[in-house]
């Protein structure tokens, strides 16, 4: 592909000079983005994009950032829906949903995990049964980030119980504003409620909200999950333009606050290794030889992980990656978080009994200690990651399976 990034930079700069106007409302501005395609430059021209290569996206973002122009709405789980609809939706679905996602008019949530199927996602037992021209949904989902703000959900449900587990699933788009859908916030052990449980009781899905073909739910869900893994860190960035004044910025900040609220504790979940040396100096434990060894081990692990990530990016760029190398990063991130939490405890000593304003760093350290257990579970447990490393990177034999027959005969919760 012969695309000159400098030309693209000039194009976007010119377009912004003519069109960026901070007296517009957020929706008015985002409508211009959808019409021009500059909000999603790597999307197709016929669906609100400009058909530019992924390498152009960063260039466009730089130009937006340079003048404080606000981009398309991408925060939270909505892009999971967008990329999946873009890849598997029909023309009508793309026209109907994509524009309102990137303008921020519609919020979406993901309805995949269930109380009975976490690591074993394909063991989903939420059912969708055809009645006339509608699908009737019954069951329960869990870990649904931002479901309490969502207008729509992407839903995986079982449509055929005689098929094996992976082929009996279908992928639906569901309207969250209806009597058969009940959303309850789920309080976590660290006191936050970033996720929800969603209960379906005869909830209705119109026929034309089936995404792709019947029975294709699993492969389509893979599109969603692949995107989720790739951008896991990106979609929880807080909004920029903090100091800027104007209605459009106020609206943007309000929107960002809602979208990023579930991720407020994520830095603590990662262990806050950035605070370790300062804390060790404050408490004097920096002089302790045993603690120094643990600090060094943590710093080595963290630095090695950063370098591993950069080396992996080169391997991927050269097209030589095997695919599951990200599991190495994820396992290491878990380990860094755990080491960091243990070290914070060692450094903090008896004060680690306290929480809230009574605890060090205005409660941040206490929050680390009760948030870190999430990191080795969310997005695929460490145990699942280790299976992936062993089977797909080291070519060790797969686990024996007991769930290959018709799903109705498979043992389940």
């Amino acid at each position: 592909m012969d695309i000159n990034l400098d030309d693209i930079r000039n194009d976007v700069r010119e377009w912004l000079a003519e069109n960026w106007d901070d007296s517009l409302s957020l929706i008015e501005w985002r409508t211009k983005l959808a019409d021009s395609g500059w909000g999603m430059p790597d999307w197709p021209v016929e669906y609100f994009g400009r058909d530019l290569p992924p390498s152009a996206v960063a260039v466009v973002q730089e130009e937006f950032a340079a003048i404080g122009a606000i981009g398309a709405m991408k925060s939270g789980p909505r892009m999971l829906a967008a990329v999946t609809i873009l890849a598997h939706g029909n023309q009508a679905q793309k026209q109907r949903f994509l524009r309102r996602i990137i303008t921020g008019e519609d919020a979406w949530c993901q309805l995949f995990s269930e109380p009975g199927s976490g690591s074993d996602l394909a063991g989903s037992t939420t059912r969708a049964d055809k009645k006339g021209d509608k699908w009737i949904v019954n069951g329960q989902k869990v870990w649904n980030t931002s479901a309490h703000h969502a207008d729509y959900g992407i839903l995986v449900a079982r449509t055929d119980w005689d098929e094996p587990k992976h082929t009996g699933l279908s992928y639906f788009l569901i309207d969250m504003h209806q009597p058969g859908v009940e959303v309850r916030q789920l309080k976590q052990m660290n006191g936050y409620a970033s996720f929800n449980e969603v209960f379906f009781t005869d909830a209705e899905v119109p026929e034309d909200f089936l995404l792709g073909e019947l029975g294709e739910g699993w492969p389509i869900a893979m599109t969603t999950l692949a995107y989720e893994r790739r951008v896991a860190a990106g979609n929880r960035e807080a909004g920029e333009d903090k100091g800027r004044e104007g209605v459009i910025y106020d609206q943007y900040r309000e929107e960002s606050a809602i979208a990023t609220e579930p991720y407020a504790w994520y830095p603590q979940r990662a262990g806050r290794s950035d605070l370790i040396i300062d804390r060790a100096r404050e408490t004097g434990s920096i002089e302790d030889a045993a603690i120094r060894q643990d600090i060094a081990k943590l710093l080595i692990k963290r630095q090695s992980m950063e370098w591993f990530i950069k080396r992996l990016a080169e391997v991927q760029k050269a097209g030589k990656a095997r695919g599951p190398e990200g599991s190495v990063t994820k396992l290491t991130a878990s380990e860094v978080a755990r080491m960091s939490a243990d070290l914070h405890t060692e450094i903090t000593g008896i004060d680690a009994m306290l929480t809230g304003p009574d605890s060090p760093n205005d409660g941040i350290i206490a929050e680390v200690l009760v948030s870190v257990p999430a990191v080795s579970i969310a997005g695929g447990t460490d145990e699942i990651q280790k299976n992936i490393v062993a089977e797909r990177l080291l070519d060790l034999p797969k686990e024996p399976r007991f769930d290959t027959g018709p799903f109705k005969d498979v043992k389940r919760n």
Partner: protein
Amino acid sequence: MAFSFTEEQEQFRDVLARFLRDKSPTTEIRKLMETDSGYDGDVWRQVCTDMGLAGIHLPEESGGAGYGPVELGIVMEEQGRALLCGPYLSSAVLAGLAIGAVASGEEQAARLVGIADGSVVATLAVTENQGLWHAADITTQAVPVDGGYQLTGRKSFVSDGQNADIIYIVAENGAGLSLFAVDADADGLAVEGLEGVDATRRIAHLTFTNCAAELVGAEGAFDLEAVFDQVLIAFAHEQLGGAQAMLDSALEYAKLRVQFGRVIGSFQALKHRFADLHVELELAKAAVYQAAQALEDGDDVRAYASMAKATASDIFLFAAKECIQFHGGIGFTWENDTHLWFKRAKSSEVFLGSPADHRERMLQAMGV
């Protein structure tokens, strides 16, 4: 900083790996372990002359290939994987890097040519009572005597001290630390060969009593820590290679060995431990490779060098221990090859400073 090997470097590694697989099978290693010198002179000549490995990192004007720490790292890693018996670490790495650090021009060329072509085996004697590279521990004295010097002192844990033709010695002469050269047959040099856990390597204590020595480079010019950094980065690569050999060996066995009607590599209890090992090895590779890149770029590598040594020592020993455990009873036998690498790992763990020593050195280099 580059974050990948070039195509050329990858090809070099492949050629090297094939050569070493051919020249250093464990049947050969086991034979050489029992000999006095511990290595095969013919293979060593091929390593130096045919493959040009001893001079890979030495300047072209000194008979070397003029490459840098990344290529030296590749050589060390592949040698560590193949457990090649030979004075590479002593001659090319320790002596070669020490000479390169203080000597220049004709003097440098004169001293390095023989190391590069393998006609001279050299080594470097640094450590004394504590076995550590600490400037304060160095008490060996060099006294000027009609145009030359006389050396008196005792050096411990000198790699290939009994094989070397020339010994390079770090000594104190009032002007700070300097590098001196002593011929192996010099009067006043006593060599005490030691029995090492790692039978693929030779170590000796050397005692110098008014021993005739030549100054190399300028007086007081030897930057101990800077040479140490370079040596550590090279040595860490060797340990990485050993760790890779252990993981590969364990994996091969786990895919063949059947118990309870299934290959043992299909048990999740083992698969998860293999995954842990793989993760740790990938992280260690990142740390060691980037330390070499940083050295190549001329960055301050003190912290990175110690990070590399600590992490490479840890992963090598971890992989060797796991390899024995994965093999079960057979892994504890003399006949099984695992112990050859395990002993190299044990020995390398404390040679040039333990992982704990280097974690502390890293923190101090970082100002922590």
